[in-house]
């Protein structure tokens, strides 16, 4: 099992930056995304796992071994950076061939993967054999990514580390490369830690997400949980929750709560382990979870909140239309283009929000 990747109580002070008892594990072949704003310490964390900074406390486990005291070349990792970091003075073949591995870890490899010391076969596996003699500056970003992967794989890694490799790319290329990377990582069955500030990267790639802010993890969990049940307003905004609303708790019983937003009442499912009875909370509602329809009578349902309001703004964003509604408080929602054709500022609409589409977060 190529598991045994773990970061335990990792503590580090580097210049003005502090990493405070970071703790997470990577199970099996999963991809963990460390997500956070710039300056949160994502790259430093990654470099510490890679072995370029010595932590003040804690341990790093890779391939089941405690590598905390080992130099980078003995950790069996593959490292891919922004613009892929190919060696500019070596051609593609030499870039891949330069890797050397002292000892093979007992990591399981997919049958399709060629042996790590066969550079030509590795290039063929990633579909860049015809580029063997080319220089890195002549490659497109997609080609560079594949060569970088081939090179990293040539070092027989137990863990991949990605440091915002797509940051300098345009959106279209980014989307294509991301999809391709995902398929390669699944095929290679090697665990990966991917660092980014772009939550759409996390959407595509992550099995689990570590949200990092100022050197501390504010939420760790599966991707769906982060997106739909953000732990606080910071995480919510960071993963693109459009509606973050102040509310107060009117009543709470068991797993449900009634909340007041202005003079509107909403019912929402409480997150598990909800502590105490704070009066003031924040609500997070993803815009796509707000179902907008022309005003119509519909049977009230305990599972859905129905609000009436007026359209205050419409904005076309490609195939979608972002619609702003005033229903006692401001709310944003998405509609497909054709659905918005009949709406204009001032139109009356109903907004329906399922009770489990509302994330209740501490203030």
């Amino acid at each position, binding site marked *: 099992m190529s598991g045994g990747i773990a970061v335990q109580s990792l503590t580090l002070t580097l210049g003005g930056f502090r990493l405070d008892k970071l703790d997470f594990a990577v199970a099996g072949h999963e991809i963990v995304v460390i997500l956070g704003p710039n300056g949160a310490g994502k790259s430093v964390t990654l*470099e510490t796992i*890679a*072995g*370029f900074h010595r932590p003040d406390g804690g341990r790093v486990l890779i391939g089941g071994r405690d590598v905390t005291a080992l*130099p*980078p*070349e003995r*950790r069996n*990792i*593959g*490292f891919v*950076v922004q613009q892929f*970091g190919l*060696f*500019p*003075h*070596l*051609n593609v*073949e*030499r870039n891949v061939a*330069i*890797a*050397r*591995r*002292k000892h093979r870890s007992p990591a399981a490899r997919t049958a399709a993967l060629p042996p790590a010391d066969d550079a030509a076969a590795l290039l063929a596996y990633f*579909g860049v054999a015809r580029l063997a*003699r080319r*220089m890195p*500056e*002549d*490659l*497109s*970003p*997609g*080609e560079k990514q594949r060569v970088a992967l081939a*090179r*990293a794989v*040539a*070092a027989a*890694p137990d863990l991949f*580390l990605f440091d915002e490799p797509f940051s300098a790319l345009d959106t279209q*290329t980014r989307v*294509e*490369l991301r999809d*391709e990377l995902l398929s390669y990582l699944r095929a290679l069955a090697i665990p990966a830690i991917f660092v980014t500030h772009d939550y759409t990267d996390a959407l595509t790639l992550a099995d689990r997400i570590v949200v990092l802010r100022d050197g501390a993890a504010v939420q760790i969990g599966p991707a769906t949980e982060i997106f739909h049940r953000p732990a606080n307003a910071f995480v919510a905004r960071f993963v693109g929750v459009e509606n973050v609303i102040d509310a107060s708790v009117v009543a709470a019983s068991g797993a449900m709560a009634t909340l007041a937003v202005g003079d509107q009442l909403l019912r929402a499912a409480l997150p598990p382990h909800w502590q105490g009875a704070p009066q003031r909370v924040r609500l997070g509602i993803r815009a796509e979870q707000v179902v907008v329809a022309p005003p119509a009578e519909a049977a009230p349902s305990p599972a859905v909140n129905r609000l009436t309001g007026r359209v205050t703004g419409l904005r076309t964003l490609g195939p979608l239309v972002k619609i702003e509604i005033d229903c006692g408080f401001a709310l944003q929602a998405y509609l497909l283009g054709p659905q918005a054709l009949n709406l204009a500022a001032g139109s009356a609409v109903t907004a329906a929000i399922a009770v489990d589409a509302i994330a209740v977060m501490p203030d």
Partner: protein
Amino acid sequence: MTEKTPRATAPMLPGAPANGRRRGGAPSRPDRLYLLFWFFGSILVAFLVVPLVALALSQSWPNFAAVARMADVDQAIALSLEGAFLSATLAALAGVPLAYALARTAFPGKSLIAALIDLPLAVPHTVAGIALLMVFGRHGVFGEPLQTLVGLKFWGTIAGIVVAMLFVSAPYTVNAARIGFEAVDPRLEKIARTLGLGPWRTFLRITLPLARASIMTGVTLTYARSISEFGAVVILVYYPMTAPVLVYELFLRFGLDQASAAAVLLLAVSLALFLILRALARAAPGRANR
């Protein structure tokens, strides 16, 4: 799969307009900038080249040929080239590692060390020579033990020549190499480490080749500066004579004609050498792959 992205810019010739000529033949802005730069640049080039060309043209061929055949002239030039080569080699061996340390590490007093390295360039050459004599002479703190233990003398020997040359010219290697290393992305070195290359291999296979052009420039400067050094060398070593010392002696014994002939010969040999060194430096890093 993905289409190849075209390269960011096409190679530009100096003066070539970036967006093509507009209709009507009026030159676009980049043209004027280059013209201005070339204008001022050519003044500087003329300033540097014309005196040397005048010197060369002032030679009469028979006189020049006679001087070129003088045994001590050839010996002096050979000695200068040999001493400068040793000086440049020592500067590279000791200066390149120092430059790497300065480029990569931060430590208290780092700017002081960097300033100290530049200091020999500001010291008057005679003063430098006396300081070196103090240290490498018969009773010097290095000179005495080296003489008694290893029999190495610096007074009147090629070792003294090299020491004087190195003192005044080493800063060029260190500074150029440091700039070259600073231009190498440290992330490339980190990646090399993750690929299993230890610190030594990373330095030799990744860092050094990428900094090679800067290092070669610095070493060439050191070499050139070493050849021309007079004031510091002459304090330690008058005989055997290096070329600058010989030119001076020729001037005293004969006159301007012989002295300038020897100087022109030295310049011609040096020019040939520098062209070769520059060609080596320009060899692009990718060529090693063939």
